[in-house]
């Protein structure tokens, strides 16, 4: 694939921004480094700012207990001090912030996962048997809350066979369960469930009836075969499959000159260590 004039991080930022609507509230957690930071924090933050600048001026970002932070003034580091003094309109106790999920006030939850299945169920707890795992991971964090309560969730991930699996070893975040009609509602969950997977190869949504993951658009230079070869289950393709619309000149200009001129977000420099998304 020849150099397209934009980075994969820029492409994913633009694609994500287009998914966000004016007046919505989006929740991002902070606390990783490197490539994981770019996917979980950098791109969502840049996307929320791009959305504010292009079509969603009233979009409210939440970084844990830090609400409506000034995305024009990303802190110079992840030092505790810099986070506490990050200009923001509101810093409330974390339990109040998380209760907003339960109250149904969080429209978009940005989440990531070690394993994701075709119905969008996610796992960040174990690889292998839950009781005697092959690999023990960190724990549910707030992912179960995101997936139970958010209006919808968006996942930004590296497209990989070991991530997109036939069956997750533990459900730390509920997607559409077994895909049966109204499975979430019958389980008693109020949140809307997963809406989009924005990957390094394509954009995937969920079929409105079967709730199965389906490829909606492939990025420039990527084929459906590439997607299939890197997915651990036989992924469906939407009937109206299209090419992902690449970033416009205007969008790139905003990202490079206004939103992230120093790469704090898309090259992880906010964490003090430069990183990029390897494809």
């Amino acid at each position, binding site marked *: 694939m020849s150099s397209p004039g934009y980075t994969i991080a820029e492409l994913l930022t633009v694609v994500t921004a287009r998914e966000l609507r004016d007046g919505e509230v989006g929740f991002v957690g902070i*606390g*990783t*480094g*490197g490539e994981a*930071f770019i996917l979980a924090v950098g791109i969502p933050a840049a996307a929320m700012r791009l959305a504010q600048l292009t079509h969603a001026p009233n979009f409210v970002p939440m970084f*844990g*207990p*830090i609400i409506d932070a000034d995305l024009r003034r990303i802190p110079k580091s*992840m*030092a*505790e*001090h810099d*986070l*506490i*003094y990050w200009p923001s309109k509101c*810093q*409330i*106790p*974390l*339990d109040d*912030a*998380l*209760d907003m*999920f*339960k109250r149904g006030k969080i429209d978009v939850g940005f989440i990531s996962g070690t394993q994701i299945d075709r119905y969008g169920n996610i*796992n960040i*707890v174990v690889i292998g048997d*839950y*009781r*005697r*795992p*092959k*690999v*023990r*991971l*960190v*724990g*549910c*964090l*707030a*992912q*179960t*809350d995101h*997936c*139970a*309560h958010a209006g919808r969730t968006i996942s930004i991930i590296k497209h990989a066979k070991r991530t997109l699996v036939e069956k997750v070893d*533990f*459900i*730390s*975040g*509920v997607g559409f*369960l077994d895909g049966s009609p109204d*499975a*979430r509602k019958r*389980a*008693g*969950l*109020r949140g809307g469930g997963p809406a989009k997977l924005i990957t390094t190869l394509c954009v995937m949504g969920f079929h409105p009836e079967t709730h199965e993951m389906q490829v909606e658009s492939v990025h420039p230079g990527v084929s459906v075969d590439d997607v299939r070869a890197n997915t651990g289950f036989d992924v469906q393709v939407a009937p109206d499959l299209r090419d992902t619309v690449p970033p416009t000149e205007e969008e790139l200009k905003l990202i490079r000159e206004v939103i992230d001129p120093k790469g704090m977000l898309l090259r992880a420099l906010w*964490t003090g260590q430069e990183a990029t998304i390897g494809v």
Partner: protein
Amino acid sequence: MNKELERQVKLTSLTDAVGLVENGSTVAIGGSIIRRHPMAFVREMIRQGKKDLRLIGWNNGADFDMLIGAGCTNKVETAYVGLSMFGMALNFRRAVESGAVTMVEHSETTAIDRFKAAASGLTFIPSKTPLASGMETECVENSVHIKCPFTGEDYIALQAWTPDVAVVHMHMADRYGNILLDNRRMMDNEIDVFIAKSAKKVIVTVEQIVSEEYVYENPHLNVLPKCWVDAVVETPYGAHPGSCDTRYDYDAQHFELYREMSRTAETFKGYLDEWVYGCKTEMDYLNKIGIARLLELTRARGVRS
């Protein structure tokens, strides 16, 4: 005129406060990820050879990991054990993979809600969070599927957590046990107040002891009045290597050292020998960290830099 009767002084030594923790008891530890865990207290727990503890929290890190690596616990319950951008908590990972320690899954809100329930005098609190997740299918401990008596909706009843001891690290206290937090702080750790209120015995380690008069001048900063506190200990830099809000940053170098020495059980023994058993007191530990490093971490000195 009558003389004032002596009031109870709850200020005590670290050694005596840790002495209040009994083997086999349930201990709640406050703080979150790499922020404001009562690490001085944790190190002294290891020195005193505490055993068979059940540890509960909501977002834990080196606190749980160190106690696991030192063999002090057989069961942990929290939504997270990790070192944030410094990687996985390797003692925790090893112990759960081998079966030496049991981990019971929680999400951030299910752990927080259990503390909140107890802090409000309730024996349970309903939550929709665990429904249909692995928490419901695999970890049914202290959870029951119920229906709302008014709407018939599905909920999971989470049993309240009432630990034998809660330990939290805060900013200031007077000798009588009134606990004050700095005005500006990371709001993740407001949970510490619920953790303290849930417990049968409450131990608070603080950065500094202040005068009674200072407390009279700042009642709005008092989050735990003395009647809800059993022991106070002065442990300056007591969250190290974690951060303590605007007072000092987390020590990235030490976390990297910690992670490297956690790679195997043998190398971790080396960490404990050097930084815990080898430092008889917390002052020994701070002297080993060194004044230059502590000043670097304190660089911003509580104001916007």
